[in-house]
C-alpha cells in the first residue's frame, strides 16, 4: 500500500526528533519548509510521492542539518532535564506530571509531620522514634505507588490490591504487640521498605508485573532512582549545612528546625522527586548505574579474589560476630546488584566478551564467600540456637546462594556457548518475587514465630 504524504512527513519528523540539537519549534519550521518545497514541486507537475522524495533530498541528510544546529546551539547537547522549555502541546503533559510529583512530595512531607498532632514526636525522649522507625515506609511509599498508579492509569483492581497490601502491612506494624526495641520489630522495620518497594513495582509496571521485560525495567528504575536520590541527598546536605551556618551567624540555633522539619520532610520528598526525575529522563540521558557497574565490577571481583586468597594463605576464618555477618550480607547484596545491573544493560545478542568472563569470576568468588558466610551463620546457630537475627541472616544467605549458584551455572553455560544470554536475564527477573516473599515473611511471620523477642 502506498503511504500518503502525511504519513511520510510524520515518519520524517520522527527521524528529526531523534536529533538532540533540533527542538520541536525548529522541527516545525523545517517541516513547514519541507511542505512548501513539496507544494512548489507539485505545482510543476510532480506527484506527492515524487515531490516528497525530491524535497527531502534537497534538504540534505538530517545528520548534517543537525550538526549545524548543534554548532549554533551547543548548549542543547547538554541535555536539559527538568527545565527544558518546550513550546506547543507536549509541555502541558510534562508540566502536569511535574506538578503531580511535587504535590505528592509535599503530601509525603506533610504526612510525616502529621503524627505529631497525635503526640508522636521525633524527639528522642518518648516512643516517637520507634513509631517512626516502624512506620517510615508508610509516609512515602503509598505516595510513590500513587504516582505510578496515576501515571500508568492502573486498573481499579490493582489499585485496590495495592491499597489492601499497604493497609495490612500498616496493621501488622502497629496492631501486633511489638516490643519497643525487640529484634523482630527492628527486622520487620528493615524488611518492610524492601517488601513495599517491590509492591510499588507492581504500580510501576502498570500492573503487568509478570512481564519479565517490565520487571527488568523496574530494576533499572531502582538503580537510577538510587543515584538520583544520592545526588539530591548530597545537595540536601549542603543546604542543611548552610541553614545551620546562616542562623548561627545571627546567634540562633537551627538544629531543631533541621532535625525535625528539613530532614524528615526532605528525606521523604526526595524519594518522590527522584522517582519523577528518573521517569522524565530515562530516555534522554545516559543511565548512570551501568557506568558505575562497569567501573566497580572489576574492582569488586579483585577484592573478593584477593580476600579469598588471603583467607587460604593465612588459614584464618570469618569471625562469627553479628556485625560481620551483616557486613557480608551487604557485600553479597552489592555483588548481586552489580550482577543484576550489568545484566540489565547487556545486549542479549552480543557475543561473549571479556566482561562476561569477569562477571563469571565475580559470581564464583561471591559464591565461595557466601558459602563461608553461611557456614559461619550455621555454626553460630548451632552454638547459640535460633534467634530472629540469625535466621534472617541464614535465609538471606540461602536466597543469595541459590541465586548466585544458578547464575554461575548459567554463566558457565553461556561462556561455553551452550545457551544464550537471555536465560541469565530471565533467571534474575524470575527470582525477584523470592526477595518479596522473604521480606514479607520477615515482616509478617517473624514477630509471631519468635514471639516478639
Amino acid at each position, binding site marked *: 500500500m502506498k503511504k500518503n504524504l502525511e504519513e511520510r512527513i510524520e515518519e520524517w519528523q520522527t527521524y528529526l526528533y531523534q536529533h538532540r540539537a533540533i527542538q520541536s519549534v525548529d522541527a516545525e519550521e523545517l517541516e*513547514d519548509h519541507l511542505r512548501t518545497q513539496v507544494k512548489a514541486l507539485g505545482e510543476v507537475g510532480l506527484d506527492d510521492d515524487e515531490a516528497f522524495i525530491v524535497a527531502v533530498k534537497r534538504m*540534505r541528510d538530517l545528520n548534517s542539518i543537525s550538526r549545524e544546529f548543534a554548532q*549554533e546551539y551547543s548548549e542543547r547537547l547538554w541535555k536539559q532535564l527538568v527545565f527544558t522549555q518546550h513550546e506547543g502541546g507536549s509541555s502541558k503533559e510534562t508540566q502536569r506530571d511535574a506538578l503531580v510529583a511535587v504535590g505528592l512530595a509535599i503530601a509525603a512531607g506533610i504526612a510525616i509531620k502529621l503524627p505529631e498532632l497525635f503526640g508522636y514526636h521525633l524527639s528522642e525522649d518518648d516512643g516517637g522514634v520507634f513509631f517512626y522507625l516502624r512506620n517510615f515506609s508508610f509516609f512515602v511509599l503509598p505516595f510513590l505507588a500513587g504516582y505510578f498508579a496515576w501515571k500508568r492509569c492502573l486498573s481499579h483492581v490493582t489499585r485496590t490490591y495495592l491499597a489492601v497490601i499497604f493497609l495490612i502491612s500498616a496493621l501488622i506494624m502497629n496492631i501486633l504487640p511489638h516490643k519497643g526495641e525487640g529484634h523482630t520489630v527492628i527486622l520487620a522495620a528493615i524488611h518492610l521498605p524492601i517488601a513495599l518497594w517491590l509492591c510499588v513495582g507492581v504500580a510501576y509496571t502498570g500492573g503487568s508485573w509478570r512481564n519479565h521485560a517490565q520487571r527488568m525495567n523496574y530494576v533499572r528504575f531502582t538503580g537510577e532512582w538510587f543515584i538520583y536520590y544520592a545526588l539530591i541527598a548530597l545537595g540536601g546536605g549542603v543546604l542543611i549545612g548552610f541553614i545551620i551556618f546562616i542562623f548561627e551567624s545571627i546567634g540562633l540555633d537551627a538544629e531543631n528546625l533541621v532535625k525535625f522539619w528539613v530532614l524528615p520532610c526532605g528525606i521523604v520528598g526526595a524519594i518522590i522527586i527522584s522517582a519523577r526525575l528518573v521517569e522524565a529522563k530515562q530516555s534522554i540521558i545516559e543511565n548512570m548505574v551501568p557506568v558505575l557497574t562497569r567501573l566497580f565490577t572489576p574492582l569488586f571481583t579483585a577484592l573478593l579474589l584477593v580476600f579469598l586468597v588471603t583467607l587460604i594463605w593465612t588459614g584464618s576464618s570469618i569471625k562469627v560476630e553479628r556485625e560481620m555477618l551483616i557486613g557480608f550480607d551487604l557485600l553479597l547484596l552489592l555483588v548481586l546488584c552489580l550482577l543484576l545491573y550489568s545484566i540489565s544493560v547487556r545486549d542479549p545478542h552480543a557475543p561473549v566478551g571479556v566482561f562476561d568472563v569477569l562477571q563469571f569470576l565475580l559470581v564464583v568468588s561471591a559464591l565461595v564467600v557466601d558459602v563461608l558466610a553461611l557456614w559461619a551463620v550455621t555454626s553460630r546457630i548451632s552454638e547459640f540456637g535460633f534467634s530472629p537475627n540469625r535466621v534472617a541472616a541464614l535465609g538471606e544467605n540461602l536466597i543469595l546462594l541459590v541465586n548466585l549458584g544458578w547464575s554461575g551455572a548459567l554463566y558457565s553455560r553461556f561462556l561455553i556457548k551452550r545457551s544464550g544470554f537471555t536465560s541469565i536475564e530471565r533467571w534474575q527477573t524470575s527470582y525477584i518475587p523470592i526477595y518479596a516473599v522473604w521480606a514479607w515473611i520477615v515482616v509478617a511471620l517473624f514477630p509471631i514465630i519468635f514471639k516478639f523477642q
Partner: protein
Amino acid sequence: MDIGKDLVAASATPIVMAILSEGATYGYAINKHVCELSGGEIKWTEGMLYPLLHRLERNGYVEATWEKSDTGRRRKYYSLTDQGRKELAHQQRRWEVVDSALRGIWGSTFNVLLQSN
C-alpha cells in the same frame, strides 16, 4: 560553479539581512529568493539557513513571529529590527569596500588576464 564554503558562510549574513530589509518573509522564501538572485549559483542548505536566522534573532538583528500561512499551518516569519538595519548598513559599507577593492584590481590587470586565457 562552486562558490566555496568560506565565502558562502561570509556572505550569507548580509544577503539574508538584505532580503529581510525588503520585508518580513520565511525561510523557504529566502532560500528561493537567493537562488533566483544568483541565477541558481548560490544554494544554501537548510542546516545553514535556519541556524543563521536563529543566530541573527538571538543577536537582536532579526525578530521572528509565528503566523498563519496560506495553507493554514503555522509558519515562522522573520523581519529586520532597527538594530538589524543599523548592522546591515554597517555590513553594506564593509562589503562595498571589499567590492570596490576587487573591482579596482580586476578592472585593470586581471580582466586582461582572464580575457587572454
